């Protein structure tokens, strides 16, 4: 099997031209809010008093902060918004790669997050995405496709770096592993 069986050479070159370029500068649709912090904590039964006890938050962090691991949540849009005509997808570069390379399925395999300035209630975060790499064709137990690495850089409204998240995705077609 050649690379062109899975994705066209031109599409691959076009995607690789984007490596290192800042894409999809976005400002969060809504400010960071405490209710969603509690939704997150409840989903994993996180009782850290930093998120539940006002006096602990005041003393340690000068007021409520969001759990660091929630950073990407603030950019995932609500499922619907008035006037929105297109489905908004987080991590758009990932979906661009799937579409351009003709790989209908995808999973995330690795995720690194480095945390900087804490996220506070009322913050309106901004972000951009940077494609770091696209692999040669690989076959795994899921199918045949390509791995890619995407960085998502987050800052607050004052331009302070909040986090850098790095995702490794695998886009693939099912079933080709067993056929080869």
């Amino acid at each position, binding site marked *: 099997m050649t690379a062109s069986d899975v994705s066209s050479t031109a599409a691959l070159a076009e995607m690789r031209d984007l490596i290192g370029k800042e894409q999809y500068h976005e400002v969060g649709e809504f400010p960071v809010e405490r209710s*969603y912090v509690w*939704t*997150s*904590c*409840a*989903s*994993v*039964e*996180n*009782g*850290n*008093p*930093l998120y539940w006890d006002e*006096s*602990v938050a005041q*003393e*340690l*962090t000068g007021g409520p*902060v969001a*759990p*660091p*691991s*929630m950073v*990407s*949540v603030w950019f*995932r*849009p*609500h*499922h619907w918004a008035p006037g929105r005509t297109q489905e908004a997808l*987080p991590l758009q570069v990932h979906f661009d790669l799937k579409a351009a390379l003709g790989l209908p*399925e995808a*999973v*995330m*395999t*690795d*995720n*690194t*997050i*480095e*945390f*900087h*300035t*804490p996220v506070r209630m009322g913050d309106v975060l901004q972000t951009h995405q940077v494609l770091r790499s696209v692999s040669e064709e690989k076959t795994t137990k*899921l199918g045949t496709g390509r791995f890619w690495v995407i960085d998502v850089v987050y800052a607050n409204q004052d331009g302070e770096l909040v986090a850098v998240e790095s995702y490794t995705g695998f886009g693939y077609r*099912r079933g080709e592993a067993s056929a080869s």
Partner: protein
Amino acid sequence: MSTTVLPQLQLDDVTVGESLPALHYEVTATTVVLGALATRDWRPMHHDKDFAVERNGTQDIFLNTPNQAAWFERYLTDWTGPHGRLARVTFRMKGSVFPGDTMSLTGVVDSTSVDDVGCGFVTVEVTLSVDRDVKTTCAARIALPLNADDNPWARRGDQWRPSP
């Protein structure tokens, strides 16, 4: 600054090679869906079993990555208490976690250090497994106070270095 909230764990309480208390949790469809909604991840393989089976080829819906990050954070800060400040985490997904699984989080301290600006750190290798089958690993670096008056959250600018 003197604090009245005493640290639950300080750097010198920690020994390289020590194990963190294990956490066992029975995952249900509700766990998976709650986690997906809490992270605003509307992709159907995290709430629609038919889609997960037919399109993803998995046995059921499965925990999404951002929610697993929240599980790892909770596991680590259960141990450190509120003074523990996450600096960096690296997850590696090896398999999926499905409803009906009992997931176990275990952790081993890999290193302790004090950086050039006097911030204490531990690195912990955390494993999420089901029936001893490793599903996700998390290499975490987390700041701990050096003493009862220290607070890693007070660090700003170049006094906070999340990567060594």
